[in-house]
């Protein structure tokens, strides 16, 4: 790009016809053209923008940043600033690169920072705008903490997450499908409140005196408290009118589902918190777009990245909000890419900044959480088998050793068998791969029938490459067996089963080095080849149906592929009384391998959480049930003497949000249609703002909702809670668009706001018991059944 081409443009003098995109030759519209007056009007109005003393009469439709904070820089002679005056005038904005329209025209309106306060009263008046969020936050403290210890039993998934927290305190390794950050915070809460980690967290059990469950719940609920100010400031950053900011804060404050989920020892309050922060930081960053590479710009971008890392480290559902940020960034970079006046150096810096802050930083945060996880959990526990390295005792494997065998493929489990039989194929005893420690994973290595019988007192005979062995399942004394019956899932392979007394498995070992003679636990990778059939013992990530308890299928593959990790096994645990103890420190596995391995195992287990067609799960619900709140969820026992919690949203918020999404799509369609026919409904700036907020909310909702249809796993109503945030934003956005920022009288707006606020608060008050706990027989509480499908009352 030559310097001469860089055009610094300070706008056209007022009074000249509006300039249209880059087409300098274009003839202006005739004065009679309907769009003429509108555009001139808007143009004049924008000219006065930097003066920031706007009143609503001259800019009826634009949002007024009344309450919000005034951080950010000043609209000065920035090169891109002038471009916001560009008006494409409804021309074909699709097929040509638009002349580097900066996105400053959407989001919050910037105001210059106020002069430093000279007196207390000035200070107060300058910061008066922060008063409402403070009040809302105090209110949310009250709703979140009110009667928080009322139910002294383990409620709902506290049974899981409380237990996982205990594992951190006891430093025992465990396995779960969720990443560790949230559970580590639970553990931290336990640590801070003095919990010793010895409570079992059985569902429905009354808490021990040693468990400071109230303190732990309060700490979890604090994340829930923070949602309210985050909602408020996000609305501010999105450039909504103060009316709408109040509505967003009210809705976040008053949703019963968000309230209920925040009050227990669960991951969801943290997930919601980080989802909210991600959106907030993204909008914050968006408002710094006009001053690229400034300190603020870098700071908010980096914070966004960290927040992405955190949300993903709490639950993988956080990837959805990451996708929102991703879409925003792609669009942003695409716009920048088309900006021919930007220097190549700046282009590269923009790209590098995104890669650094939005890809590398989150990955580091995610990995850091795992690093901490591994560092804290250095004792053996119930989840060991999902990890490849263990804390075992003996070195070389000999005949007569009792071993557990772990599949080497990513996410492989332990070779397992149980008394249940295959309902298909041979009907013999099932052999599977299982991710948890269990006595059913134990196998004994015995010589073949032909060989002399194993003598427990005879000479110790170490296992060698090429030995023919029998593998006997310890609890059932069945032997590992294979035959030419098609395996139940991978039909081209042979079935592997436990069968009476048969000699079967022979052994090929491929050690990390050549010429290995002895088989070492953990470090030797081996393959098992069937002596008669020549097939290899194989466990890919094929999940058995319900009759196999969703464990992994084990089969025997005819293909001899030395590169296929799924045919490799190693000896994970090893017991042999006649051997000396091994030295555990040889077995430290590299972090990256553990990290990757655990993630694959989580993925596999997550996908195995598929609904059981034979069993109707009363708690589960389908994604289609959520937007219209067809079902709630009983969070605990429903007896008359129990305190009952019901996970159900505030109807007006859920239904309003869903309706607003539909309305937005329709309205967008109508606007586009009219645009194609050249009706000008809004100035370009208004249109950009309408689209920007709509995109954040719309993409967010879509990306948080649709993937649940594709995922095979079982879904619950609380999966919709992060999604709900985006529908709340959309609801507020549309109210803003049609009422609060539109040309209505102030009194009309007041009335509309009053109605909305009354409905939200009234609904909340009506259903408050769902989150605060309902005592006594449920059927005594009248009027809660707004939809017949809710299973609130005992029939």
């Amino acid at each position, binding site marked *: 790009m030559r310097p001469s*081409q860089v055009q610094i443009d300070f706008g056209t003098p007022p009074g000249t016809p509006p300039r249209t995109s880059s087409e300098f030759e274009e003839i202006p519209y005739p004065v009679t053209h309907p769009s003429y007056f509108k555009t001139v009007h808007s143009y004049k109005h924008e000219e006065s923008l930097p003066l920031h003393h706007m009143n609503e009469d001259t800019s009826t439709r634009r949002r007024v940043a009344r309450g919000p904070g005034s951080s950010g820089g000043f609209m000065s002679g920035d090169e891109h600033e002038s471009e916001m005056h560009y008006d494409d005038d409804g021309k074909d904005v699709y097929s040509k690169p638009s002349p580097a329209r900066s996105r400053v025209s959407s989001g919050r309106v910037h105001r210059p920072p106020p002069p430093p306060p000279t007196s207390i009263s000035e200070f107060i008046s300058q910061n008066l705008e922060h008063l409402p969020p403070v009040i809302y936050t105090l209110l949310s403290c009250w709703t979140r903490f009110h009667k928080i210890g009322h139910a002294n039993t383990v409620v709902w998934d506290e049974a899981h997450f409380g237990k996982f927290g205990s594992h951190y305190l006891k430093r025992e390794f465990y396995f779960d499908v969720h990443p560790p950050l949230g559970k580590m915070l639970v553990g931290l809460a336990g640590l801070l409140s003095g919990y010793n980690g010895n409570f079992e967290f059985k569902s429905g059990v009354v808490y021990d005196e040693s468990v400071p469950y109230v303190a732990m719940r309060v700490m979890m609920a604090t994340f829930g408290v923070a949602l309210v100010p985050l909602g408020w400031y996000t609305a501010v950053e999105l450039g909504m009118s103060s009316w709408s900011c109040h509505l967003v804060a009210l809705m976040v404050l008053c949703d019963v589902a968000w309230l209920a989920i925040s009050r227990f020892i669960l991951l969801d309050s943290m997930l919601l918190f980080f989802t909210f922060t991600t959106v907030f930081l993204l909008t914050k960053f968006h408002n710094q777009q006009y001053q690229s590479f400034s300190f603020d710009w870098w700071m908010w971008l980096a914070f966004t990245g960290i927040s992405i890392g955190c949300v993903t480290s709490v639950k993988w559902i956080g990837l959805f909000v990451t996708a929102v940020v991703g879409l925003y960034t792609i669009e942003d970079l695409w716009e920048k890419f088309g900006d021919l006046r930007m220097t190549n150096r700046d282009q590269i810096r923009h790209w590098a900044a995104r890669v650094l802050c939005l890809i590398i930083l989150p990955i580091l945060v995610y990995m850091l959480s795992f690093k901490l996880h591994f560092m804290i959990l250095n004792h053996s526990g119930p989840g060991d088998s999902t990890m490849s390295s263990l804390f075992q005792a003996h070195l070389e494997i000999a005949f007569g050793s009792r071993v557990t065998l772990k599949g080497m493929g990513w996410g492989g489990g332990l070779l397992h068998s149980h008394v249940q039989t295959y309902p298909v194929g041979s009907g013999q005893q099932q052999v599977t791969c299982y991710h948890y420690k269990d006595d059913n994973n134990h196998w004994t290595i015995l010589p073949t029938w032909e060989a002399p019988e194993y003598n427990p007192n005879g000479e110790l005979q170490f296992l060698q490459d090429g030995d023919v062995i029998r593998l006997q399942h310890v609890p059932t004394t069945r032997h590992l067996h294979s035959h030419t019956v098609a395996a139940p899932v991978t039909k081209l392979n042979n079935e592997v089963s436990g069968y009476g007394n048969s000699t079967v498995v022979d052994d090929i070992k491929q050690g990390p080095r050549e010429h290995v003679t002895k088989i070492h636990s953990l470090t030797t990778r081996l393959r098992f080849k069937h002596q008669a059939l020549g097939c290899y013992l194989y466990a890919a990530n094929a999940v058995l149906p319900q009759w196999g308890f969703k464990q992994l299928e084990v089969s025997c593959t005819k293909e*001899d592929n030395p590169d296929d990790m799924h045919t490799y096994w190693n000896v994970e645990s090893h017991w042999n009384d006649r051997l000396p103890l091994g030295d555990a420190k040889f077995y430290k596995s590299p972090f990256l391998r553990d990290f990757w391995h655990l993630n694959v195992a989580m993925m596999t287990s997550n996908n195995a959480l598929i609904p059981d067609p034979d069993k109707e799960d009363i708690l589960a619900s389908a994604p289609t049930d959520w937007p219209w709140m067809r079902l709630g969820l009983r969070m605990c026992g429903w007896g008359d003497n129990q305190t009952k919690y019901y996970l159900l949203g505030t109807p007006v918020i859920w239904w309003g949000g869903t309706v607003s999404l539909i309305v937005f799509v329709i309205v967008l369609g109508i606007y586009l249609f009219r645009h194609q*026919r050249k009706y000008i409904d809004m100035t370009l700036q208004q249109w950009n703002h309408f689209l920007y907020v709509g995109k954040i909310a719309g993409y967010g909702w879509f990306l948080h909702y649709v993937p649940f249809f594709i995922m095979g796993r079982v879904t619950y109503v609380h999966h919709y809670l992060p999604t709900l945030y985006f529908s709340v934003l959309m609801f507020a956005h549309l109210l803003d668009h049609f009422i609060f920022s539109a040309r209505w009288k102030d009194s009309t707006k007041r009335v509309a706001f009053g109605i909305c606020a009354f409905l939200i608060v009234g609904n909340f008050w009506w259903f408050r018991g769902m989150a605060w706990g309902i005592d006594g027989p449920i059927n005594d509480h009248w009027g809660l059944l707004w939809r017949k499908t809710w299973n609130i009352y005992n*029939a």
Partner: protein
Amino acid sequence: MASPSRPRQRIKVTPASTAGNYDQDDDDHVHAIYQSPNSRSALERVLDTPQASAAMVGVLTAIAFALRFYKINQPDQVVFDEVHFGKFASFYITREYYFDVHPPFAKLLFGLTGWFVGFDGHFTFENIGDSYTDNHVPYVGMRALPAILGSLTISVVYAIMKETGYSTIIAAFSACIILFDNAHIAQSRLILLDATLVFFMSLTIYSYVRFRKLRYWEFTVEWWSWLIATGFFMACTWGAKVNGILTVAAIGIAVLVDLWDILDHKKGFTMEHFWKHFMARAVGLIVVPFIIYLSFFYVHFAVLTRSGTGDSFMSPAFQETLIGNELLMNSQELRYFDVVTMKHKDTKVYLHSHPDHYPLQYDDGRISSQGQQVTGYGHDDTNNHWQIIPTKALPEAGRGRIVRHDDVIQLLHISTQTLLLTHDVASPLMPTNQEFTTWPKDDHSRHNDTLFYLNIIDADSEDPWKSKSSYFRLVHGPTRVSMWTHSKQLPEWAFKQQEINGNKNPTEKSATWFVDQVISTESPEGLSGEQVPKEPKKISFFRKFAELQLLMLQHNAGLTSSHPYASGPINWPFLISGISFWTENDAQKQIYLIGNIVGWWTCVIALSIYVGIMGADLLARRRGIEPIPDAARGRLWNSAGFFLLIWAIHYLPFFLMSRQLFIHHYLPSHLASALLAGSVLSFILSDTVNYPISIVGRWTKLRKSEYADLGMKGPVVVGVFTFILFLMFVYMAPLTYGTPGLDGETVNAKRLLSSWTLHFAAKETAEVS
């Protein structure tokens, strides 16, 4: 990089036009543009003549016929899905009703062909490997139909490319990819639906291209004819196989884009004009196809008038329209005091009771009512007999004694003389459901608990209760549970019979029962066995159509069981695995459905090149650089983009489907990718295109014509490629034609990818040790 004047240069392009006019002065490509047809190379000029084109398509079609008819009588056995589709054809001839997930058009064609070649319909295509010659089936005639359609597909592909403005040699290239494709050939030599599907799909594309080229001649007769032809062929595609709906979607999207363009104010059309266009397309592409689609079903129902294997899929009302249907023969209206047996629709057990009682306490510690057991029992037994007791006053005789929908009844167990009852006691196996038991007839203390509403499904009030054909739910009066059973067995104390309990959902779908037999009746007609065959009833065509559509959808989604040769969509374009259609052990013959690996991989490469070119073009233009001449870019975006759209629409939705998927589902997409491969090759070889190709109309701005010229390199490249393609085809041919037999070593040699599961492979002797 951009020259200083470049950003301004771009402005001269009219973005709305499908392909911008070309500015001669300022482009490096100018030497390659031929604006006079005579400046092209001699070879191109010769090939471009209509005679050469006709000769080319003639030769290609002739080869196609030869390859598809070669040894079409081999094997003389039932192969793969001929089991289904051959059978369906024979049902059309015997006029027996059947049920299938696919619409009937292609199968009707097979039926017609079968009838035409004298097939009597008595061979039932039971198993793969059944001999045709032994059973005197004129199978060659039936196989000729897909072979003919498959051969004609080649000409259509050629014509599509030619109409889209590509050189003869490029058109031949696309046609050859299909012509020498083992998968297309294997699929069109057998009694399978795909050849019909692919043929009509290509015709749809062809008609749409013709229609689109007439866009400056809107509302002329020709324009209307091609519009309606598109609709017609679209209906045929959809009618051939259910995946044909994807063709409808693809055309639909293209039409929407088209309409959006018309809507653009810069085109200067009025809204009236737009609505006129909109209505024309609605008629041509919605109304007409729908009527044709309906007509297939009309013929289908008109032909299949007898009871057959498909009866049990349909509702009782439907079944009664079929001649000789069991329901029609045996169904009779039930009257009070009739003694009947009742069966559960899904698990086929009788409602049963016996004198034994529920144990006081179950294993899990819950307490029962200790009432008489009510169970589900699979076998005929006098303990299955129940009498219908009225709860209202009845007339002495006549039709007033017929039991009707919504009546409140009691059921009396004949052998123990007790009444069926349910109450709020947990059932033995499910704490959430109510226990069913019985109560002595004379003890009126619990009269209310013995009352049940008879809820006949899909019935209006006053509809009579009929044996066999009325599906009903029995809903308990006081507690609103419906009598339900599930396939779990009760323990030993109930002789492992099935549990019957009350489901809290009164409209539970699986709580459906029907009266199986009438044991005794006071009806004047007596028991059904003595009746004369009744006339089939009639219900309206639209009701039949709606019912069948719904069932087809449900069953299509329900095809989820695993199949050894099913494969995921991601494998298809790369030919990771095929399908073993048929084997014969003696001669070691087999048919293995697999594409021509050269052709398929070429298509994949072409697709990726196309995406690459488009991406690069997009990025470049974003930076104000225009690397591709406008005419060529217009061709790439519009016509090749259309092919890409067809490919994507026929491919990507399979990723969302959870049903069984096979590689032959990719054949329509493969055809689209062959078209795209032609476009990409043309672009790689030369910047030139034939332009404009749309027929110039009254308002069209006249632009300078351009002519494509591939010179010598076109024929050479295509010639060499076709030769390699042909060699690969010949190499794989034994697997496609199922003859001659192959020994193990040869099979191993033909197993080009290790993931192909060919039969009769020689054992690999070498072992790692």
